[in-house]
């Protein structure tokens, strides 16, 4: 295979663009979360830095960068320093396989609006989302603090209870699209979105990704009320910021995946595909913020009970039903 310099330049541009957009979006999601939570609570939210407080993420960044980078006595130095990156990097890597727009034609080259059109994209997502929890587990363990350790134990217990149902809820999608390739899954939804065929799988996936990005009904690993800040109790400065931004990147990425698997990815009438995709991602982000403003935190055993005894059997039944339906339809 011969590489055209224009191809390489286009790929590099795509990567840079995705990086920039994802990081900016994550920073502004923090701002949006603070604003929406404030509105829910009849407050105004941040409005001091810049017009309507729009420069608040920048001020937060400066604050985080200039804070002391503190390491507790007895902490495992290398794991402690590596864990935030281990939490943030897999989250941003998942975005590599998400198609975020219809293919474009630039300089006579067809450009897939997707960093890498992997033929096992869905499996890569499952693998990376499991790796992301290592950041939580090791960060809490390396901190040499009881709160952090309890948080990371909860993170692991949470992982084994939602990951299974999340994987199982995606099996019907693969059965319908007959491919693990995310662009094929999007193409299979050009007529009808999968949420129409698979509302149950969509609900299970939605609940699972809320647990995956450790958002409030399932924010057990960080549970402010009980564990101070859970697994990142001992982190300060930009290392804490990496955990924090990783969480919001996770929201963007998982929202994008939910849109890809069930809401037809970038398909949609009238508006350009990229706008449709961005709109769906932001709608999911808003849904998560809204849920955070509404719901209380589940207890530790309630989540495990819910994951193992309700979501997983339901997902299995759903796979069976989908299989029967596909066979009967022929």
């Amino acid at each position, binding site marked *: 295979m011969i590489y055209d310099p224009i191809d390489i330049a286009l790929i590099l541009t795509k990567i840079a663009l995705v990086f920039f957009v994802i990081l900016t979006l994550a920073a502004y999601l923090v701002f949006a979360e603070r604003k929406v939570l*404030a*509105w*829910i609570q*009849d*407050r*105004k939210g941040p409005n001091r830095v810049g017009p309507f407080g729009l420069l608040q993420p920048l001020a937060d960044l400066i604050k985080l960068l200039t804070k002391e980078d503190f390491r507790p006595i007895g902490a495992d130095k290398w794991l402690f320093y590596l864990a935030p990156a281990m939490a943030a990097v897999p989250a941003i890597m998942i975005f590599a396989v998400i198609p975020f727009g219809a293919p474009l034609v630039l300089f006579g080259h067809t450009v897939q609006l997707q960093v890498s059109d992997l033929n096992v994209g869905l499996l890569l997502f499952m693998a990376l989302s499991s790796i992301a929890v290592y950041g939580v587990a090791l960060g809490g363990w390396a901190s040499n603090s009881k709160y952090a350790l309890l948080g990371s134990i909860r993170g692991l217990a949470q992982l084994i209870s939602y990951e299974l149902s999340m994987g199982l809820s995606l099996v019907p999608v693969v059965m319908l699209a007959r491919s693990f390739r995310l662009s094929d899954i999007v193409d299979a939804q050009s007529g009808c979105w999968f949420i129409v065929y698979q509302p149950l799988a969509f609900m299970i996936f939605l609940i699972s990704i809320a647990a995956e990005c450790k958002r409030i009904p399932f924010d057990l690993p960080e549970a402010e009320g009980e564990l101070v800040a859970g697994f990142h109790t001992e982190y300060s400065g930009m290392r804490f910021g990496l955990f924090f931004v990783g969480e919001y990147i996770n929201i963007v990425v998982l929202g994008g995946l939910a849109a890809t698997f069930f809401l037809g990815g970038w398909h949609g009438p009238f508006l350009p595909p990229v706008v449709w995709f961005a709109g769906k991602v932001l709608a999911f982000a808003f849904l998560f913020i*809204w849920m955070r403003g*509404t*719901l209380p935190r589940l207890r530790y055993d309630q989540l495990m009970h819910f994951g193992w005894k309700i979501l997983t059997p339901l997902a299995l039944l759903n796979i069976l039903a989908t299989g029967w339906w596909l066979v009967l339809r022929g």
Partner: protein
Amino acid sequence: MRILSDIAAIMTGMWITWKHMFRRPVTVQYPEEKRQPYPRYRARIVLTRDPDGGERCVACQLCSAACPVDCITMQSAEGDNGRRFAEWFRINFSRCIFCGLCAEACPTLAIQMTPDFEICKRDVMDLIYEKEELLIDGCGKSPDYNFYRHAGIGVTQPRGTGVEEMPPVDVRGLMP
């Protein structure tokens, strides 16, 4: 069905938060907008004067005794006409908890609370108010009251001519 009522409960909660998103915030943007406190709001303490312009404080130490955090001190003195006053009077606002007990204890209504709550200072020593800073020119919340008019000790008027006061009784004329 349990699950249906649970889903209904979640939806009710989501609906309530949704409605609150469009409600007007209750925030008062403090430095730009200021809320006018009620007249009886308890903030900065002042020493008032009686309607004739004299100091009301008689330096009886009752406010100092009532103060739970001991932030009031004074030195009492007596004028030539028998009028008592505070030689110096000091309130440490860095200790004051604005409970209002001093104002309740004051028999001459001299010490009073005002709604002025903006008394931040850069230097903590600036929060120690001396008598000159505490004294105001008005009567505060009780415009007509003059302690010495009622007291009957002949400071502002001869004995027996005060408000609701009978002339002194000649004890020798009290024969049975």
